[in-house]
């Protein structure tokens, strides 16, 4: 993927979320704007056979993985044409056939699941990698420790990606987690680990490519921490706890502006092309919304299907 492609993907996520949240009845949503570089950088390192799992904050990763924006939008609005037939909704987006094994809204809850996906690849000798994106908040959960240890002793093809946006709802990461760097958590287990700037999609994708290649070739698991930002409040119905001054600083760390500036500087992009990319992204989001709006809600009878 070229840097321009990465930029386009990030723009699509940003535009998608903007359109979603501007709909009056959007339910409440967990938006990932500010962390597009994590989603896109991670996805850029994966092949079709790999599986990506995430926390509930999954719009960016789902789109980056190539899911149809219309079906994702439909799912978020509870429509029957959604990826999960409208039954999963926010926090549970999934489309394993496209390499997006899915989101899971229990904080830390997808870590052991992802390790199990990796175990399946290993036992079946499939050269694929399971990747799990989770938040800084999830780093406090015991599940991480159990997963790191099992991934290490069994050399699982698993890459753990901490999308450290430095907040868990209202709680700053600094108040909740003792480690200096969250990637240090992998150190005792002898796993390769690094912390990168999660607003720099090139850093993320480069680090990921190395870990994914290593895992794919039997080298075992790794841990990548990406320092990102959360541009919205925790959810679109949660009150923001950061001050306007803090938010102003946060907004300066925009992964899209960063890459765009880089490409403009390098002469790989001009203002006009960028504007065109922005409007394409916006139109794609509007089209996704139109698709979702037109889709029906599932029939009430679906409350009892696919249970057992």
């Amino acid at each position: 993927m070229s840097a321009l492609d990465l930029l386009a993907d990030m723009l699509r996520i940003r535009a998608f979320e903007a359109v979603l949240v501007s709909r009056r009845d959007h339910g409440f949503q967990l938006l990932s704007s500010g962390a597009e570089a994590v989603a896109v950088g991670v996805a850029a390192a994966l092949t079709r056979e790999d599986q990506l799992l995430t926390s509930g904050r999954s719009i960016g990763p789902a789109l980056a993985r190539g899911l149809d924006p219309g079906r994702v939008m439909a799912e978020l609005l509870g429509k029957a044409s959604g990826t999960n037939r409208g039954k999963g909704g926010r926090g549970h987006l999934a489309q394993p056939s496209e390499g997006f094994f899915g989101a899971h809204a229990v904080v830390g809850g997808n870590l052991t699941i992802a390790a199990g996906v990796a175990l399946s690849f290993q036992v079946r000798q499939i050269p694929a990698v399971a990747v799990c994106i989770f938040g800084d908040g999830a780093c406090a959960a015991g599940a991480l420790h159990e997963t790191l240890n099992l991934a290490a002793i069994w050399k699982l093809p698993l890459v753990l990606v901490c999308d450290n946006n430095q907040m868990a709802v209202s709680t700053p990461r600094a108040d909740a987690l003792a480690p200096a760097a969250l990637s240090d958590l992998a150190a005792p287990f002898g796993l390769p680990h690094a912390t990168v700037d999660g607003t720099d999609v090139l850093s993320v994708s480069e680090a990921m490519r190395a870990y994914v290649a290593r895992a794919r070739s039997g080298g075992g698991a790794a841990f990548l921490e990406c320092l990102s930002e959360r541009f919205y409040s925790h959810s679109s119905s949660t009150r923001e706890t950061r001050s306007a001054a803090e938010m102003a600083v946060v907004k300066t760390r925009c992964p899209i502006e960063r890459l765009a500036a880089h490409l403009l500087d390098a002469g790989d992009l001009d203002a006009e092309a960028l504007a065109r990319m922005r409007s394409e992204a916006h139109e794609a989001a509007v089209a996704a919304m139109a698709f979702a709006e037109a889709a029906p809600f599932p029939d009430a009878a679906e409350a009892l299907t696919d249970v057992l």
Partner: protein
Amino acid sequence: MSSDIQPATTKIFFREAIARAMREAMRDDPRVVLLGQDVGPFGGSYKEFVGLSATFGPTRVRDTPVAEEAMIGLGVGAAAAGLRPVVSITYMDFLMLGLDPLVNYAAKARFKTGGQIRTPLVVKTTAGAKGQGVAHSQCLEAWLMSVPGLKVVAPSTPADAYGLLKAAMLEDGPVVFMDHKRLFPTAGEVPVAEGHVPIGKAIVRRAGTDVTLATHSYMTRIALEAAEALDRLGVSCEVIDLRSLAPLDIETIAQSAARTGALVTLEEGQLTCGVGVEILFQVLERTGPIATARVGALPAPVSSNPVLEAAALPDADRVITAIRRLLESSRPGKS
């Protein structure tokens, strides 16, 4: 006592009732501490802890990391060693992550140490569905009722939220205080005077003569809505709010059911091995054969999807249908 001297009350929201109970208990007893995610300056996911952090400071009102096992485990250990912690588990679904310290340690500590250790801990947690999907909507109170050594309370009004939380904080063993997402923004009269509501006492929320409807938590509101509609249909429905699930005030329900001759239970959780079936059987043991039915969720996960969530959960219509069907089959011609 003259019945027209009512205690002075004030109208507050359910979430404020919780904050008030906490505030009074923390003022009165330095051993009371609050642990939970976003309970500090943020004031709780439902603003039910607003102001506590400012008043009592970070030593006694502690924001925790997302680590439910340790949150409950530390609460249990601290309780065993002299504090009276209240641990907030935002959603009851995540109680699963902390069941080991709660069930394997706290509920058994007094017994297994021959009375040396007690664990005066309150786990406050929020049950029920409100658009949050399969892993944020569960009602697991029946599991807890089956654990010897645990008490479980489930208020449906601000007054009971206040009074039962006060009572829970006075207990010498572990209590799970479960509230409900849909209750926080509801308002109700709460006595101005400080006090508490005794654990283990159900309350008749509405008197009736044709059928007894026993329920708890948010479903009490659905039950009252159904009872009102039934009234217009000529069916007089007595509504009992359990308030306390363990211990269960079975006598109050049995007396009512014996009088009305019909008992329906209503819960938001699963029917199988649920709260309702336990009540129905215990009442039948006391009353002998009467007409019975239970209403609860469909046997399926609860989606965040508005259509599917509504389809999965009991509502007033379903309660009305169940009651009418029951009365028709047991007393043809009555309803």
